């Protein structure tokens, strides 16, 4: 098969999958299926893919990813509740907040590996504490903020839009020059610099895109669940779950996080139904086993052993 036709096969397969996926998601509420399940499925797919931009493509593991999620949630909540604006403004404000925060944290991108991850974690914790200690009239203090937007279904469709946009962005990244630059940075930042790639700028772009995705997700979730509070919005588990789901599927691939989320949520749901007491324990065990036997993730391992599948899956 020629390179061109294999590229088209890949594109067709991907578009086909995407359309089927979208159809399922759109139809789900109409069929009376559990909105909660499908909402959170879309949410984690979006978050894991957003994280993938930083970790799979650029090689950073932001343990404080939740900071962007939380700031987005609060931006939306404050707009809607304290300023009385429409939720659309809230979402826009969330995106801006995410971008601004990522700029503030941009200096940390100079760090590598574990240092970056720990500093990221610390920054998210500081965000949480600061927000929790803002005066009540500003950010609800201990009570958090209740949005009271209503039209919950709207949040679901908004999330679908963001999810598709995220997946398309990641797809574009995988093919574009920026994406190649990022992967070069991930593999060896010094060599990338030598080759003429503007490491700082490329990284920053990826960082901002990643942050905005998380912020929008946080804002939409606030709309859906109607309440934000500092502990849940900046929860470490948000970052770690996104990382684990992305890794479980396969970092650096487009479909990886999607597969990872679907499989892990399915497993988690099954565990929750049968063994609610052992839920967390089994989740931990699954993570350990995954890292021991499938460290490249499901898709990653599959592609490693059968590289010819790269024609269709990526």
């Amino acid at each position, binding site marked *: 098969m020629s390179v061109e036709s294999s590229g088209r096969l890949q594109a067709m397969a991907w578009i086909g999958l995407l359309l089927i996926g979208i159809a399922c998601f759109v139809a789900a509420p109409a069929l009376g299926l559990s909105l909660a399940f499908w909402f959170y499925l879309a949410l984690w797919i979006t978050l894991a893919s957003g994280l993938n931009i930083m970790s799979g493509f650029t090689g950073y593991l932001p343990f404080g990813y939740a900071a962007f999620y939380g700031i987005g949630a609060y931006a939306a909540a404050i707009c809607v509740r304290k300023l009385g604006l429409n939720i659309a403004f809230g979402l826009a404000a969330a995106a801006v907040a995410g971008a601004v925060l990522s700029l503030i944290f941009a*200096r940390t991108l100079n760090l590598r590996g*574990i240092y970056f991850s720990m500093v990221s974690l610390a920054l998210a914790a500081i965000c949480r504490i600061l927000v929790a200690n803002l005066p009540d009239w500003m950010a609800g203090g201990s009570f958090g903020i209740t949005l009271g937007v209503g039209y919950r279904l709207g949040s679901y469709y908004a999330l679908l839009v963001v999810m598709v946009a995220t997946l398309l962005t990641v797809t574009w990244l995988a093919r574009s020059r920026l994406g190649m630059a990022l992967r070069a940075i991930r593999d060896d930042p010094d060599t990338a610099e030598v080759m003429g790639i503007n490491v700082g700028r490329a990284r920053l772009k990826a960082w901002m895109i990643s942050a905005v995705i998380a912020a929008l997700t946080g804002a939409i979730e606030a709309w859906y669940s109607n309440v934000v509070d500092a502990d849940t919005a900046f929860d470490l588990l948000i970052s770690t779950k996104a990382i684990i789901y992305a890794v479980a599927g396969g970092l650096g691939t487009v479909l990886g996080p999607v597969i990872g989320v679907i499989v892990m949520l399915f497993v988690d749901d099954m565990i929750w139904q049968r063994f609610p007491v*052992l839920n*967390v*324990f089994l989740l*931990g065990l*699954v*993570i350990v086993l995954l890292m*021991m036997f499938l460290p490249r993730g499901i898709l990653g391992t599959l592609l490693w052993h059968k590289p010819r599948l790269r024609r269709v899956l990526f």
Partner: protein
Amino acid sequence: MTTLLLFQTLVSGIILGALYGLIGCSLTIIYGTMRVVNFAHGDFVVAGCYAPLVLLGLLGLNPLLSIPLVFIGFFGLGMALYYLIMPRLRRADDPELASFLSFYGVSLMAGAAMLYFFDADTRSLNYSFHPSVLHIAGLLIPTARVVALAAGLVLIALLTWFLYRTLPGKALRATIMNPGAIGIIGVDINRLSGLAFGMAIGLAAVTGVLIALVFPAFGPFSGMDFTLIGFVVIVLGGLGHPVGAILGGVFYGLAEQLSILFLPQSLSPVVGFALLIGTVMLRPAGLFGRVGLR
């Protein structure tokens, strides 16, 4: 705010700092020898908090006397865990990430296990010393804290002796300094790492016993808090420097207690995190370290 209050706070800071330093010490041994970030470290500390509870209940054993038992038990557990997980992880493309995440999984399992056995209510060690408070130099210090500090100092002394005067200890320090070279001179790095891991877990658990004496309560999910404290401490002290960790711990302890004194308690954790960020960005070798680790 009186000077009395200030001195009380400083003493508190030093005592807690010594314990935090011990946590950092054991964590840095693991990182230094294996470049593994043990996300479950705090959970082993908390397990160590529960151990004297159980031993006191079952055998009526004085918490101080339970220390050797706890150490041996957790040493074994540590080594077992090492041999179970690490060899596989070493073969991954990215062992650091793989071990980072798998120890997060271990952390979840440990927390859930403790939850199952002990319920989520916070527990306390119902062991009081008589008298419960000592008057030293005009300050009121709970006896339990003085005892914990003394025990902690003994542990630090033992550890220093081990690291600087015994052959395995020196091998350990050599591994931290240069893991590649160690293999060349014929040391079985796998066995040494297993030993180091077991020791570190044992030490973490024993630190937990002391923490149970000092803190009024703990719960199965306090693990992550201690893990984070451990990280701040080892960054302050320089990754891979056990003695630096102790100093880093004391520094952190003082900073923490002083910040509670001067700031509202709900804001005080910011100081610890700010210290971490500041040290990493400005002095990555740590306040007391000499060379940053690759």
